[in-house]
Each structure stands twice: as structure tokens, then as C-alpha cells.
């Protein structure tokens, strides 16, 4: 971590809970440059020949290992598109932590568009955590447009945790997932926007194999004058099970559009969706205030719990 300056270190803590160099494989990228990398006997990280990103190769059967690939940007005016490909070997079980932190104190916009593609081998299980965070009080915007593509082979499973709680001015998150037989996908998205921020989250999940299942759940809070759109489409092309849910709290002058949608192309596809948008219930505030919290403290507790 000695290669990082204090702002970059702080961003690193926010997005990856990293206070020090992690155990296992990692690749740190700061202001468009790879600044540190570690590989293990089972996990290899190589730069793409054209310099557009990295390939992460996880050997079949790799268990209980982790990969950290955080990105931090602390300079104003950086615009980059990075392609990272994950090749996850059969029957492996790994945790992948990605994330991007931008600190922009300058006048120019800073933008990081990360394109992550996951090729999940047969029977493999991965947990993928992606956190986004922005800070800095300059006029320049902090922009993140992540694209996640997931290709899941037979019997594989993936848990995705997508978190963006603070400081990103504009984001369009696109996730495209294709599942083969008996593959299982669980997505938990947590999103909070404030100020004038815009956040769009688009999911397109194709359940192509019999026995495949997907559960895409989003919890979102829109404060101040921010805007959010949640657009999740689950397509059932086989005897599968799909569920998507968007649960949102709206505050101040926030605006939220929730568009959960389903498409069944097979008579044995079972697909469900739910969406709810509402302000914090008055009785929830009353209860916490009756336990001694002020109205503001009660509101914070309710939101923290909701986004936990």
C-alpha cells in the first residue's frame, strides 16, 4: 500500500475494506496505472496485450482464495475504459472483490467505465463484491459506468453484491447474465443517491438451462433531488425460476422509477417480480423515537438498516 497516497488509501478502505495489502491475488490500479500486483499458484493475473485491462485466470478446483482488483482515481480529468476478464475454473470457490473509488477535487470530470466479464466454469462458486464510492468537493463530476457480463456454465453459482452508497454523480450500471443448466445467480444491490445524482441500474438475466435460477434484489434510497432507475428483465427460456425485487425509500425531492419485467419463453418458466417505493413509515420513526432517538437519528438507523 506504500505506493498509494493518503487519498488513494482512504478510497481503498471505502471500496474494498482494505487497510493493508490483502492476502491472495490482487491488482491495484491508481490513476490509470497498475501500481501493485500479486499472483498465487492458482490465480494468475496478466495484462492484456493491448493494454486495455487484465485477464484473471483461476485454475480449476481453486478453493478459499480471493482476488482483489480495486481501482482508485484521485486526479481530476481522467477518463478510462478498462476491460477485465475473469476465467473461473471448474469447481473452484473464490471471492472476488472489485470496486472503484474516485476523489475529484478538480474542475474536470473523472470517469471510470469498467467492463467485467465472468466466465464461470462448471460447478464453480464465486462471490463477487463491487463497491463504488466518490468523494471530493470539486466542480468536476465523478462518473462510473460499470458493465458486468456473466456467463455461467452448468451447476455454477454466483453471488453478486453491488454497493454504491455515496458520492458518485452519475452511474449507469449494466449487468447481463446468461445461465446454463442448474446455474444459480443471486444479486443483492444496494444504492443510495443524494444531491443531484443520477443512477441507473439495468439487469438482463437469461435463464437458458433447465433448473437455472436467478434472484435479483435491489434496495435503494433516493435523497435530495437525486434520480434512480431500476430496470430488471428476467427472461425464462427453460424450466427455470426467476425473481426480481426492487424495494426503495424515497426522501426529499428524490425520484425513483422501478421497472421490473419478466419474459417467459418456456411453459415451465416460473418468474416473479415485486417493486415497492415509499417514504420512511411514520410509525418506524415513532418507534425509534420512543426508544430515545431524535427524528434524525431514527431516520439514519432506518436507512442504515435498510441498506445493510
Amino acid at each position, binding site marked *: 500500500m506504500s505506493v498509494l497516497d493518503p487519498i488513494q488509501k482512504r478510497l481503498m478502505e471505502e471500496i474494498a475494506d482494505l487497510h493493508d495489502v490483502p492476502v491472495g491475488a490482487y491488482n491495484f490500479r491508481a490513476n490509470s496505472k497498475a501500481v501493485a500486483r500479486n499472483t498465487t499458484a492458482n490465480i494468475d493475473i496478466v495484462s492484456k496485450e493491448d493494454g486495455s485491462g487484465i485477464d484473471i485466470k483461476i485454475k480449476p478446483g481453486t478453493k478459499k482464495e480471493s482476488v482483489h482488483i480495486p481501482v482508485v482515481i484521485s486526479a481530476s480529468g481522467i477518463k478510462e475504459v478498462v476491460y477485465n476478464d475473469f476465467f473461473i475454473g471448474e469447481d473452484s470457490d473464490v471471492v472476488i472483490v472489485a470496486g472503484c473509488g474516485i476523489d475529484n477535487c478538480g474542475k474536470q470530470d473523472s470517469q471510470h467505465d469498467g467492463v467485467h466479464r465472468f466466465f464461470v466454469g462448471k460447478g464453480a462458486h464465486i462471490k463477487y463484491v463491487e463497491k463504488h464510492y466518490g468523494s471530493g468537493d470539486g466542480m468536476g463530476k465523478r462518473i462510473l459506468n460499470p458493465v458486468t457480463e456473466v456467463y455461467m456454465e452448468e451447476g455454477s453459482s454466483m453471488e453478486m453484491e453491488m454497493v454504491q452508497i455515496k458520492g458518485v454523480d452519475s452511474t449507469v450500471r449494466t449487468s447481463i447474465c446468461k445461465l446454463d443448466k442448474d446455474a444459480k445467480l443471486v444479486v443483492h444491490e444496494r444504492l443510495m443517491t443524494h444531491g443531484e445524482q443520477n443512477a441507473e441500474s439495468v439487469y438482463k438475466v437469461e435463464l437458458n438451462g433447465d433448473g437455472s435460477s436467478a434472484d435479483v434484489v435491489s434496495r435503494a434510497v433516493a435523497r435530495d433531488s437525486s434520480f434512480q432507475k431500476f430496470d430488471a428483465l428476467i427472461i425464462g427460456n427453460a424450466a427455470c425460476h426467476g425473481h426480481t425485487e426492487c424495494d426503495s425509500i424515497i426522501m426529499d425531492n428524490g425520484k425513483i422509477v422501478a421497472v421490473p419485467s419478466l419474459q417467459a419463453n418456456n411453459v415451465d418458466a416460473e418468474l416473479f417480480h415485486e417493486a415497492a417505493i415509499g417514504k420512511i413509515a411514520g410509525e*418506524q420513526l*415513532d418507534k425509534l*423515537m*420512543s426508544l*430515545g432517538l431524535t427524528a434524525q437519528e431514527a431516520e439514519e438507523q432506518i436507512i442504515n438498516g435498510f441498506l445493510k
Partner: protein
Amino acid sequence: MLEIKDLSYIVDSEDGKKTIIDNISLTIDDGKFTVITGPNGGGKSTLAKLIAGIVKPTSGSILLDGEDITDMSITDRAMRGISYAFQQPVKFKGLQVFDLLKIAAGKERNLKVNDACTYLSEVGLCARDYINREVNSSLSGGELKRIEIATVLARGTKMSVFDEPEAGIDLWSFQNLTRIFENMRKDIKDGSIIVISHQERILKVADEIIVLADGKIVNQGEGANILPQIMGTNSAVRPCSKLGEEA
């Protein structure tokens, strides 16, 4: 000591104004276990909410230990020692049982898991099974009700108001509720407990009974004197015939 003076609560209704609480005055002394009973729609729950500050009166005043709390917020009343158990416990997405108990115990106390365990056992829940559960619809009505009571126990304030604590809970809880109230009375010096209930079992252990109907106090006095007068009316009902026979 809680003093209620000329308290009224009037709401707008389709036929004009409806008086829910009609010019009530009463005093609840420290160290007393007071049960407020009466027919449904008589204003019992509203009176509890007026004491906790959930609703504000149209006129009149409420004094706690001589201090006028009529215009105080729910928080300020809570800080002065009023706890309130909701008739219908509030659900929270994401907040866990332990979170709620920690909030109830207050920042200064920094409640530990062991302490939380004590409160949950008191209401008949095993902490190990419940501490990390979300306070949401995955819990049954009875479980939520017991957790609601546990939050009041964790606060340990001098005045606790329970709005129909027995409503919707199972036999275990019902039989143990009176024990919980008795323990609270022992543990909190000069603590007073106000329970809204028309269950005979709870009325039996009351020091004082207040009967409320149509927003007015229609009877009031020592439990032993009042109970025989209201037995068999809808101000004192048995939980079920089986329990009645057993008692």
C-alpha cells in the same frame, strides 16, 4: 408521578368532530401497576399514545414529575423516562433484533449480547435464534410482540406503558406477562407500569384499575375493589374458556 389534567383529543370525522378523549383528569402514582380497561373504542389506546407523545392532545396537559410534557416530542418524553410498547409492533427491513435492543438500551450502555440475551429470555425467546433476525414480516405476530416488550425491558425506564401486550400472543406469553410486569416492578425502584388491557388475568394483579368508556373515566380505584364490579363485562374478559377453568 404522571398527572393528566383536563385532557381532550378530538378528531375530524365524516359527521363533523369526534371526541376520542373527553376531558380526562387522573393521577398515576409512582410504584403503581395501573391497568386501563374498558370496551373497544373507548379511547384506551389513544390515551396511551397521548402519554407517549405519538399523538398530541387537542387541549389539556400532561405532567411528568411536575414537569409539563404536553408539547414535548416523543424523543424528549423517552429521554425523561417514558417507554411505550406499541399494540402493533413496527417492522423494519434490515434492522435486526439486536440493533433494536441496543438502541433501546441507549448509546451510553453499549449493550452486549449477554445483556440482550437476558431481555430476550425474559420474554421467552432464545437469544441465539433471534438476535440476528430482522425485525420484519419473517417473524410471527407473537414473536414481534415479545420483542416489542423486550425493547421496553431493555430501556428500564421509570414509566412503562404497554398497549394491549397480550394481543395476538400465544398462551406462553400470556401466562408469563404478569410475571414480567411483577419483575419490572421489583427491578425499577418507584417505577410505574401502565397497561392497556381488558384481560382478567392482568386486571387481577393491578394495584389500580381505570375504566374508560366513550373517552371518559367511568370507574377508577383499587384493583381489588374495581375488578368485582366489572367482572363479566367486556372490560374484564377471560383469555379463553379453557384458561378460565384452569384458573
